[in-house]
């Protein structure tokens, strides 16, 4: 029983990271029906830039700088990879361009930070706290709180500020939003900035708990795909539940079956959800007007 509780606890921390990346997919999918296949690389760059900065300053001072860097990286992806492809109906263009930017980022990161995995110094004590026999790392608590905080911040922004409402309006109906004087192109760029920013943030959150390196992003970005589909690409809260389900499924599979198979339940869940409820567990299937 203790073991299971422990597994669930680590699954929650992992799941929140997935949820945070998947949340980034939702942000851009809502405004432009596109998403960044290099989201994992945005996370990786955030973590590595954070690692370099942390050599010169404290973790807390580094955080805002990484967020700014993440936003800038998102703008680059949108301007080079997404904007020119939006005019065509086909998905082929933006999928290919975001993937090619992803492999370029990965390659550049390898050339700057090397091929080896690095350790990211933890800003919080590494002694686990024990609650009812479950060992919890302070960093894990920070992951959960940090992820919830940024999602909440975006939600409040969308509901309360006129700019946030403009983002929601663009997601609802891009043409009609344009008629309101909203520069929808700018909204899409902004959503990419926000999306990469959350990924970079996820990167510096998870980095102290895992190894940091050029290859760390790919698998995380991929898991977040599963989470986004399981939860629903258009359902805000779905990603949290989806993330938790996947995180816990992985830690328990890893323990009870074999660590080698821990990635399998994600794919199976993904295929299962698509079979039973293609819009995702919490997604609303939209009736398209013809």
């Amino acid at each position, binding site marked *: 029983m203790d073991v299971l509780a422990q597994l669930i606890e680590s699954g929650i921390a992992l799941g929140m990271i997935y949820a945070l990346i998947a949340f980034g997919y939702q942000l851009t999918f809502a405004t432009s029906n596109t998403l960044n296949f290099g989201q994992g690389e945005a996370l990786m760059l955030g973590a590595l830039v954070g690692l370099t900065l942390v050599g010169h300053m404290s973790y807390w001072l580094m955080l805002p700088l990484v967020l700014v860097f993440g936003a800038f990286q998102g703008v680059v992806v949108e301007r080079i990879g997404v904007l020119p492809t939006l005019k065509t109906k086909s998905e082929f263009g933006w999928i290919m361009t975001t993937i090619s930017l992803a492999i370029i980022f990965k390659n550049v990161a390898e050339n700057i930070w090397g091929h080896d995995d690095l350790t990211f110094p933890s800003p919080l004590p590494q002694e686990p706290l024990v609650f009812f026999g479950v060992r919890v790392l302070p960093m894990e608590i920070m992951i959960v709180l940090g992820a919830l905080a940024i999602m909440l911040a975006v939600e409040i922004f969308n509901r309360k500020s006129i700019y946030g409402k403009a983002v929601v*309006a663009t997601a*609802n*109906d891009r*043409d009609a939003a*344009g*008629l309101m*004087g*909203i520069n*929808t192109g700018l909204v899409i760029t902004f959503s990419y900035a926000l999306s990469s920013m959350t990924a970079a943030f996820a990167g510096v959150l998870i980095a102290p708990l895992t190894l940091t390196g050029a290859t760390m992003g790919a698998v995380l970005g991929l898991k977040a795909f599963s989470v986004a589909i399981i939860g629903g690409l258009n359902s805000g809260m779905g990603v949290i539940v989806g993330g938790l389900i996947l995180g816990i499924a992985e830690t328990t599979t890893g323990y009870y079956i074999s660590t080698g198979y821990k990635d399998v339940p994600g794919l199976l869940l993904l295929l299962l959800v698509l079979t039973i409820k293609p819009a995702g567990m919490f997604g609303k299937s939209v009736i398209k007007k013809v």
Partner: protein
Amino acid sequence: MLRINNLHAAYGKVEVLHGISVEVPQGKVVTLIGSNGAGKTTTMRAISGMIKPVSGSISLNGKDITGMSSSKIARAGLAHSPEGRRVFATLSVTDNLLLGAFPRLTFGRERGDVPGDLVRVFDLFPRLKERETQLAGTLSGGEQQMLAMGRALMLNPAVLLLDEPSMGLAPLLVAEVFRIIRELKARGITMLLVEQFAAAALEVADYGYVMENGRISVHGPAGQLKNDPAVREAYLGAAH
């Protein structure tokens, strides 16, 4: 106020507007009538920048707005209440209305009295006031139409385009929509109106244009068009 000169527009390769010239003078209501597929909605979409015109020119208040993006055209003072209403379904009624005033609220430059305008729109559409916190997607068709019109008014526009405001509405609501259009006219708002109910549209308008297959076939003062036998035959007596 709004001047459209020899406008050509196309969807893909198929040209659907073959040289439209329309003029909407300050403070007047001009209506565009014609059968389905004649190109009325396309004309509206080309004016507000939803599609790029192939050639021709559009000017607002003497300023050339041809080929500008719809957001820039809105900022220049043209509001468009589009066909099919297109309200923001997941936002509340109030938020929809505030977004109508988006250019007046952003960059810290509040131009004019937005809260006051909100009150005035609610006065004009009391039904919306009752539902101010409700999500727009849950409104009935008539209420959504009111919202779309109210939202366009929130821009405080120099020219208001209304595309088929009566579409899909019950007769009582159609009457209500026309009452509001008359009210707006009394307030001196310049309007370009596309309507399927040609008779009612000519009743409220000062001037009318009849469209046929992407061209203007007849135009003239509304009273004159109403009595034009050809127009009567084609558009006014549909069910007779």
